[in-house]
């Protein structure tokens, strides 16, 4: 595809339900990131993959959050037993080789999945 694709674009869940959010990165991009953006806030880092390896999951807010990228391409962010505070836009981004300080490296974002927990 032409860019990072996320699905579903909108998800309404009842408190306590499990949800799964999918991200299709740009083909060939090694690095994949998940961010959470609450209303009126900037994106906050959740986790980072390099190919299939999850190298940083320090931003996941609780053990209810789980992300995987088993074949190094498509990624899924799973939230178990959703709570109202999980309501946010979940952004996926990919990068060819990741971010670095030499000036190369750029994040390409998807349109996001808006999760509303009632």
């Amino acid at each position, binding site marked *: 595809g032409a*860019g*990072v694709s996320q699905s579903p674009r909108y998800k309404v869940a009842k408190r306590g339900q499990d949800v799964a959010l999918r991200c299709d990165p740009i083909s060939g991009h090694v*690095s994949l*990131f998940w*961010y959470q953006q609450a209303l*009126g*806030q*900037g*994106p*906050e*880092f959740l986790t*980072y993959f390099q190919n299939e390896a999850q*190298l*940083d999951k*320090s*931003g996941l807010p609780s053990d209810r959050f789980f992300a995987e990228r088993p074949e190094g391409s498509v990624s899924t962010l799973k939230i178990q037993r959703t709570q109202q505070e999980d309501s946010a836009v979940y*952004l996926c*981004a990919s990068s060819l080789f*990741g*971010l670095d*300080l*030499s*000036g190369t490296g*750029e*994040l*390409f*974002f*998807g*349109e*996001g999945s808006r999760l509303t927990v009632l």
Partner: protein
Amino acid sequence: AQRVTQPEKLLSVFKGAPVELKCNYSYSGSPELFWYVQYSRQRLQLLLRHISRESIKGFTADLNKGETSFHLKKPFAQEEDSAMYYCALLPGNTGFQKLVFGTGTRLLVSP
């Protein structure tokens, strides 16, 4: 801990006026800094990065290490500049991949 502060939630200017979107950061090392932009109904995208020293769409940003600031400037605002702007910091540790974003400033350029 790293932090990025954008003190203005909304900045409203008239077309042709100068624009300065403020960004201050807190980080003890040497970060790399970025500005990301989100136009209406579009996805978040990179506008410019400090290390490239480039001007994109007439915007420039200068890193002031003494004031720990990376303000975004444009001498003459255009209506199409109306968007949400996010300042972001990448800590200077090799291999560190966590971009830290500010809360954003909405720029509204009126005719």
